[in-house]
């Protein structure tokens, strides 16, 4: 066990799985970097450094730099997966899935069902998500609802370094296509991460903080934000339970429902627009199956129904921020 960043945890998971299983390969844009250039080859390790050092250890047959061709990257990953490899494809920013979405949702996600259970597609798509990076409208989105609604995909949103490593190892060993969504703003977050390989099961929520007055459900980068607000409210004697589902598909419904049964109040914090997002999805779950537990209407803290703005003040207001989370919580608590 030692302190590692979210970035290092992901890198370590990739390295350990590549050592363990020769079928695990990594492909994407600049995952090695520098091919054909005059200087160092393999020194880039991805634009955010997640695949750093892998090319040096595993070489060009297992760390494949691709052209900027997302459809071919994802199509090749699914074709390789369905024929015996375990590819980990990188889509640099989730925003870039626009050009390759067909290969994800019509191809990889559907092989198993369409082929009557006779195929498996063990592939991972690693991709960076989220605003707060001043990246503008086409480099800042958080598109987990888009993937969560597609049957056949599993969707993972690690919220800390420990989960990032354990969930990525599970993703690589999983026999279905997994979308592994890395929060850019968490890359430098540090935490205790075991040195050895370990798995965290999909569909098992993490109760980040126990409480009795109100439940917060948050995803990815929103988890530390929700936790910070929970700690603020604790100073006022309000006891908040914070739940991180870890995976949006499969979703750990039981942990959420049990928590709401205890607290009677729910606020969902989700970094995506309000319509058809995870906040609406969790609210619908609790309205369906936990209605009798509720003492107040469900609070939802989401982004507005807009693209991500560039200007820092607009972007900070766009994201669910501590002020908005606290206001939502106090409104739910004040309901009688």
């Amino acid at each position, binding site marked *: 066990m030692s302190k590692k960043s979210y970035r290092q945890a992901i890198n370590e998971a990739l390295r350990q799985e590549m050592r363990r299983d020769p079928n695990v390969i990594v492909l994407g*844009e*600049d995952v090695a*970097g*520098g*091919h*054909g*250039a*005059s*200087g*160092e*080859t393999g*020194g*880039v390790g991805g*634009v955010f450094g997640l695949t750093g050092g892998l090319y040096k250890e595993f070489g060009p047959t297992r760390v494949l*730099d*691709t*052209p*900027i*061709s*997302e*459809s*071919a990257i994802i199509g090749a990953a699914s074709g390789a997966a369905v024929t015996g490899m375990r590819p980990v494809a990188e889509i640099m920013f989730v*925003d*870039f899935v*626009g*050009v390759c979405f067909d290969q994800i949702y019509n191809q990889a996600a559907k092989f198993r069902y369409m082929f009557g259970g006779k195929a498996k597609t063990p592939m991972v798509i690693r991709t960076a998500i989220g605003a707060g*990076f*001043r*990246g*503008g*409208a*086409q*480099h800042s989105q958080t598109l987990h609802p888009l993937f969560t609604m597609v049957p056949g995909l599993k969707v993972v949103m690690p919220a800390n370094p420990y989960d990032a490593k354990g969930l990525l190892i599970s993703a690589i060993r999983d026999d279905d296509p997994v979308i592994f969504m890395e929060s850019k703003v968490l890359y430098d977050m540090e935490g205790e991460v075991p040195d050895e390989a370990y798995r965290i099961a999909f569909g098992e929520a993490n109760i980040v903080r126990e409480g009795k007055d109100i439940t917060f459900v948050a995803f990815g980068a929103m988890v530390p934000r929700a936790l910070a607000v929970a700690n603020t409210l604790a100073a006022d004697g309000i006891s908040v339970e914070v739940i991180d589902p870890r995976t949006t598909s499969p979703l750990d419904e039981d942990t959420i429902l049990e928590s709401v049964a205890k607290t009677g109040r729910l606020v969902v914090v989700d970094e995506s627009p309000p319509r058809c997002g995870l906040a609406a999805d969790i609210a619908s779950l609790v309205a369906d199956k936990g209605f009798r537990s509720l003492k107040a209407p469900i609070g939802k803290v989401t982004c*507005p*129904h*807009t*693209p991500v*703005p*560039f*200007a*820092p*003040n*607009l972007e900070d*207001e*766009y994201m669910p921020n501590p002020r908005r989370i606290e206001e939502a919580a106090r409104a739910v608590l004040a309901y009688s």
Partner: protein
Amino acid sequence: MQLSRDDLKRAYRSMFTIRTFEERVVKEFAQGNIPGFAHVYLGQEASGVGVCFDLSNEDYIGSTHRGHGHCIAKGCDVHGMMLEIMGKQGGLCGGKGGSMHIADMSKGMLGANAIVGGSPPIAVGAALTQKLKKTGKVAVAFSGDGASNQGTTFEALNMAVVLKVPAIFIFENNGYGEHTAASYAVGGPSIAERARSFGMPAEVVDGSDFFAVREAMGRALERGRADEGPYALEIVCSRFTGHFVGDPQAYRLPEEVARARANDPLPRFRAGVTEAALLDHADLDAIEQEVLAEVEDAVSAGMAANRPDLSTLEKDVYVRY
């Protein structure tokens, strides 16, 4: 087409404005005055200016993530651009777009674009408008060597031929798609050859030579304005800096970067016009002084401007909703 003294001055002003603006972006970025990230056009000035030189405000261009130079070459206001890049009120997109989304419809600038291969299909549509409305205008898609590997680009090249629209595909081959060399990532003999294989004329042009770019663009424009179909130029450029501002570029040897920087379109232009006695050094020096003052002014205005009003956050998602 012979250029007048005023034309030559305009060309130099445009190239030097790009140079000065981008050098200033690098500086302001390092000082934390520009949020996010920025990709600069240093070294490619003659390409953008040569392509846009004979375009009107009614001709359209679509650009790339490395779009500041295209914006300036197409006539976008330098103040409005700097404010936009700094995320300030009064920016060309109200601070909502940023470096990678600068646009100005009144100048025929359909936006920088943060998606590689985003512009070619859009240019096909903009060209279709010109064809259907019989305007005699054209639409230009700027792309890099990296975008020449995107499926969207292939589809656009083919459809432009099929629909016979006045689209002009500019591939600025600066040798690198992000951190990977074109020599590795682009298969086949050349990007121009790819375009040709779809059935359009294509040329390879020296991107450090303003005159060569402008003349090649003249042939593309002649075909486009006569509604005879699309055209492609592969403009071979030098990328002076990294993929983004702050890229340490360990993948490039210092001598290679030095060679790229030696292939500088601005001194080349200056030497060409002064040796031919078309302009004096004093003419060019005067332009430089004016441009330096203008960019300085733009930076001061950007620093002084306020952030956009929070009330604008939810405005302009739709025309009406």
